[in-house]
């Protein structure tokens, strides 16, 4: 890629990326009851990262974010499969999800669902895969 040297986009990106990340996490968490979820949240997150890649150099981002996204994708799939296998431990069929409610001091009654853990896997797999693809293509000279 050519060296981008645009002050305006750089300054804006620095702030925008944080907003996008926050939005992505919000999308992910609200996914249980409102529009959103692992797929959308994960993809939004990678959209934010793509913005970083476009604005700064891939190398710069990689230096500050030393993650192998292939591994991220693999961990995501492992988590998703792991929650499925986990239900076998309780003598339930593969991929049985469960949920429950607990009282937390600040948040009040909070729902805990194993499906959210599954969703974490989905999100990680989506982030890992999309960024693996984008980085392999973008990196290629």
């Amino acid at each position, binding site marked *: 890629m050519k060296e981008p040297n645009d002050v305006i986009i750089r300054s804006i990106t620095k702030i925008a990326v944080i907003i996008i990340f926050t939005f992505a996490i919000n999308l992910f968490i609200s996914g249980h009851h409102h529009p959103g*979820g692992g797929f959308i949240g994960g993809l939004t997150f990678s959209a934010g990262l*793509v913005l970083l890649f476009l604005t700064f150099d891939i190398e710069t981002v990689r230096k500050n974010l030393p993650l192998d996204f292939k591994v991220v*994708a693999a961990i995501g*799939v492992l988590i998703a499969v792991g929650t499925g296998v986990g239900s076998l431990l309780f003598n339930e069929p593969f991929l049985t999800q469960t949920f429950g409610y607990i009282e937390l001091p600040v948040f009040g009654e909070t729902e805990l*669902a194993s499906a959210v853990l599954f969703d974490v896997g989905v999100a990680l*797999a989506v982030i890992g895969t999309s960024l693996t693809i984008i980085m392999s*293509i973008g990196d290629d000279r």
Partner: protein
Amino acid sequence: MYWFHFLIMLPFIFAVFVPILYKKFCPRIHTGWFVFLVPLLIFVYLITFIPDIANGNTIITSLPWIPSYNINFTTYIDGLGLMFGLLITGIGALVILYSIFYLSKEREALHNFYVYLLMFMGAMLGLVFSDNIFVLYVFWELTSVSSFLLIAYWYEREKSRYGAQKSMLITIFGGLAMLAGLVMISSNSGTYSIREMLMNTDAITSSALFVPAMVLILLGAFTKSAQFPFSIWLPDAMEAPTPISAYLHSATMVKAGIYLVARLTPVFGGSSEWFWIVTGVGLITLLYGSVNAVRQTDLKALLAYSTISQLGLIMSLLGLGSAAMYFGLGDETAVYGTAVFAALFHLLNHSTFKGSLFMVVGIIDHETGTRDIRRLGGLIHLMPISFTLMVIGAFSMAGLPPFNGFLSKEMFFAAVNNAAKMDFFNMGTIGVLIPIIAWIASVFTFIYCMILVFKTFRGKYKLDNDRVVHEAPLGMLIPPIILGSLVILGFFFPNLISQYLLKPALTSVLPMLTEADVLRLKITAWHGWNQELWMTIGVVVLGTILYLNIRKWYRVYKFYPQSLTINHIYNLSLNKLEQIYGLITNFYMTGFIRDYLVYIFGFMIIVVGGSIWLFDGISFDSSNDNPATLFEIAIMIVSVVSAVTVLFAKSRISSIVAVGALGYLVAFFFVLFRAPDLALTQLVVETVTTALFLLCFYHLPQLRKEISRIPFKVTNAVIAIGSGVVITLVALSVNGNRLFDSISSYYENAYELAGAKNIVNAILVDFRGIDTMLEILVLSIAGLGVYSLIKLRLVKEGSDERAE
């Protein structure tokens, strides 16, 4: 999850941690020491079952896996399964101990090795203990896959890759055939459980699919157990490291076919087809293996052929023994039942002596650097312990006392002699051939056993490399010593083994026999000057004469033309297949994306459009339509404009922007129609793909006006307009046709069932969770595919492909 399920899964679970252990401790501590604990633990645990099983009990535990399809991970512990389980873990532990000294911790990729090995062990345990045929099939194929990986362990060698591919092709082919056979018998008996099938054999034997199912299942068993003519993969599998050859390709995996035949004998046994196929193939394999073993010059190849021959022996015994089912109960039943008993006994013996032989050959290879018989000799003084172990193993294989092979070999002779006297299944004249074939094969077995011992250890020392040859380290000797002592102990205390292992196993193969208690099984080394003993003496005498004069008749082998060997036929057909398929593939894979798009869309037009036209699906129902608002009309006009813009765009960037705009407008439609999840997904996907486009854009050439021929343009126009029309028609006809009731009511109580107010998300992660799981798996595989296509394409052949 029961404790027993956990133990079967333990190798898989532990395999996840092997790379971590490798990274953390290697090269300080050999990774094998950690892995060693796994089979040891399972072995000890399985031993605790012996008293219970020996009393005739069986243990069933069931774990629901996909209960809606009636597929459960049901484990069924009975005598046969337990015997195999003990073999798998016992020999597994010894092999891992051996591999610790065989594989260098500095040079070898130990993490790969032990992950594959554990995968294999878990698959094998699952195979012998599972009751559900589909679970059994999954584990069956897993053993093929892990065997492939282990043969190709030194993947930089061309021969390893060749051998791995060969074994994969042959065993997977057999596995698929077996699956078809299993489906047939399960549809006849109405159950997926082997145990229930065995109780309800009439439904299978009376069905028209009886013989096809039998042949298909036997294909699976024969390919796995390297029976003639599928035996060709086994010698090439010897490219694997020697511990693997000892474990997979002699002691355990190749016995999976034997296991299957034994397990299904209660279903198929008693029919003449089963008797003839199993016995016949077994005997041919026995002869083929032993005759070919004599001509080998590589020690491991010799052992490979001898394994083929011994597997044939066990297989033919199972075939002969199945005749017991034919008689019902009577004196004859006992006679043939003994054959099955001999098969199980020999299976156990073979695992012990062949395992130790492979380990000794590995030691020789390790210490001298060669396995070529022509270069070896005179090692007796340098490696006395290895020599002793080799003598024990080889003499047991040749059927000499005082080793356990003698006992089972005598029982084998007894069984073939009985078969000669049979007067059913059209035996008549052919029956006499059975003992003759068996006897000739035994003579050759004797000869190659002598070659194994004396060509390597006696004679002149002729090694010409600079190595200082000495005895192997103690750790490498301990496993073969344990196996060797079992060979001798087996001779002196056969009835102990029989009581606790073989009789319970026999109960599983021939249940009605043991119920009636007609079998008086007492193994004795001496039973008078009977025919069997004379046969053994004959084998020894003729074998010795032939061995001493081997130079004079060795030339016979050269008369057999090379072009008629099965290997040659295999290679030829593989090459031809590659050529033909290459031609076909090159015909339609042009390398132009637009051609592929033409295929895809053309297919869609023909199938979707064709079926809509055929079934009169085109009917419009506008009674429920809302009037379009101004806002909707505006968005529609803009989308049409942006779609048309793409066609006339002069530069790539403007067409990408136009496509992106179209995508966002579609998202607006989703918002208008109150599908926020879809709208969000569409928005984000559009953003990321546009970014991806921009990245690819960098690599693409300038857009220029293409001057192309008229037919080409016409095809494109037809395809483009056609797919547009078909999609429009489908979209418009949706309201006119309601074939099924809406399924949305199933998901309406998502909050009660899944605790989620967002139905879309509840469907994604809970109701249809398995779809999502497989989708992200496919997604990740696609990601890795893109990565490997782009990143690994420049890697030259021969260099480390995993450098990235």
